[in-house]
């Protein structure tokens, strides 16, 4: 793995058993993501994008194939080792924000640092909330914040540990279009500041904001699309991997 590659999946396969039938959720997926990329993973439901996201986010492991993340083979890890990788390397942003209801914005953002055992949690959490433009909302609880603000808190929580990748699952799915655009702008700013961002979405509008779009169907990558930066018409190139 070269200097620029942050993440490399090779021949990754994941099978589920639902009742009596085997479902091949991921079928020999190869994926390389470079440091500083902003990437969209798209596909219809049942295409395996949730499975891919879970494995990318180290919530799950594949049956076979390898997954190198920031120079570390994480495909054979389990349990608490995966938890440690998630804590250090991954920042999650969810469609429904997934903040802890009874904690303030600041405490929500602090939490991953506390699990990491860091003593500068408060300072870093403040800085992260300032980055997402919520320096004046630190002591509000989630139910006192708007949807967009909640998602900003979630993004602050994702970036506070300075992770290798920020992994966002339909981050604008529960927001109206204007707020959604603001959130995408925030991702752009973070990306320009050096963060690697992966957005899993079925929304092509969202995908167009990303430099690269990986299209998934039936557990395979069927196309890769390079988008011109910032709202420019995109050029399409069929992936040769699709057979």
């Amino acid at each position, binding site marked *: 793995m070269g200097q620029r590659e942050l993440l490399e999946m090779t021949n990754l396969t994941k099978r589920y058993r639902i009742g009596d039938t085997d479902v091949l959720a991921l079928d020999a997926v190869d994926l390389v993501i470079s440091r500083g990329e902003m990437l969209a993973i798209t596909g219809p439901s049942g295409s395996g994008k949730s499975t891919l996201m879970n494995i990318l986010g180290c*919530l799950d492991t594949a049956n076979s194939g390898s997954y190198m993340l920031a120079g570390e083979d994480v495909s054979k890890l389990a349990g*608490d080792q995966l938890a440690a990788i*998630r804590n250090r390397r991954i920042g999650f942003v969810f469609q429904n924000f997934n903040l802890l209801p009874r904690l303030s914005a600041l405490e929500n953002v602090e*939490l991953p640092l506390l*699990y990491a055992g860091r003593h500068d949690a408060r300072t870093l959490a403040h800085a992260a909330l300032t980055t997402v433009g919520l320096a004046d909302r630190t002591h509000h609880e989630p139910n006192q914040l708007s949807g967009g603000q909640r998602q900003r808190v979630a993004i602050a929580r994702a970036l506070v540990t300075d992770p290798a990748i920020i992994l966002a699952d339909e981050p604008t799915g529960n927001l109206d279009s204007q707020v959604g655009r603001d959130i995408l702008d925030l991702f752009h700013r973070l990306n320009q500041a050096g963060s690697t961002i992966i957005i899993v979405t079925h929304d092509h509008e969202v995908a167009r904001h990303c430099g690269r779009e990986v299209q998934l169907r039936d557990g395979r990558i069927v196309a890769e699309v390079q988008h011109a930066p910032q709202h420019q018409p995109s050029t399409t190139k069929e992936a040769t991997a699709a057979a």
Partner: protein
Amino acid sequence: MLFWTTIKIALRSMLANKLRAILTMLGMIIGVAAVIAMLALGNGAKKRILGWVSRMGKNTITIFPHNPKIAPVLNGSADPLTIGDARAILKIPHVKYVSPVVTAWQPVKWGGNFTTCNIVGCAPTYIKIHDFKIQNGAMFTDYDCQDIASVAVIGPETAERLFGSQDAIGRTITVSTVRFKVVGVLVPKGRHGWFDPDNQVLLPYTTAMTDLMGRLVALNHIDLQVDHAANLNRVQAAAQNVLRLNHSLIHGDEDDFWISNQLQVLKMANRIGGAFTLFLGAVAGISLLVGGIGIMNIMLVTVTERTREIGIRKAIGARRRDILRQFLIESMIISLLGGLVGVGAGIVAAHYVKFRSFSGHVEPSMVFLALSISAAIGIFFGYYPARRAAALNPIEALRYE
């Protein structure tokens, strides 16, 4: 820092479900209060018994005329205890006072008043051995014993029953059919269960034996006082030798008498009191167990309700032990808070609830014990729910609605 955050989350989730938290705690409160109250009551009873034993004189030894080991019931075959035995015992070193004692349950009359009480024939030393004081008049003397004088010292309760508020000294009472002049009244000691030292009549043992009981030899017991507690066992052994010699017992014969010293009685009272306390505590402990099951139940509900939260925590890097610790801390907070309130309630209960003549007596060790048990229950009954939470799959937990 994570620790304080965990406690804060636990407290907030309890505040969000106040009624549930209170009801769960109520189980612990009742359990701990019951344990404290019962232990205190048992302890109070023990203290009462010990107090009673020690108020009946310091460093005393009592010799009975029959050995329960060989003859559970008095049967005439043994040599009786005699005045001679008592005199011989007086010669043993470290013996301060000796009194032969004969007792009977007899009616006592004065004017139209009447009471039935314990009649004790004894030597003047009897009140010193058993730590009685005279409030009015004086104790009868050794001369009275020699002269077989018809004089009596009566308990304050007896005086009250016979004479009411009138002065008893110098009046003549009738015990059974024999008349005695009252020469002294005892200071009250307080009633102790079935035995009332304040309602008795003390007579010279010679008079009691000759005039009242119609026997001139057999004593009911010999009471003695030793100069120091350290000499109790030595004096007991010496008395045993003296009596065996007097009763012509040869090697291999069992004693035909029984010696009990106060230390042994205290020890036994302590043991019985301890067992009683333990029994009461164990019965109350069952309610604590029920409280613990209540905690487990509520924690299982809590874990299910907060599945999504657990998923979020795992996604951002909480390890199994982080989740386990969080829910253990929560269950411990419930059990410890319940325990604290329970201790308070138990102390109040022990203070106000009186059972017959004894009341509860709380000791710091009981509070410590109750709180330790509460914490242990929190951990024990919280462990299974916490382990379930820790074992949740993060993907499924995140998907949980």
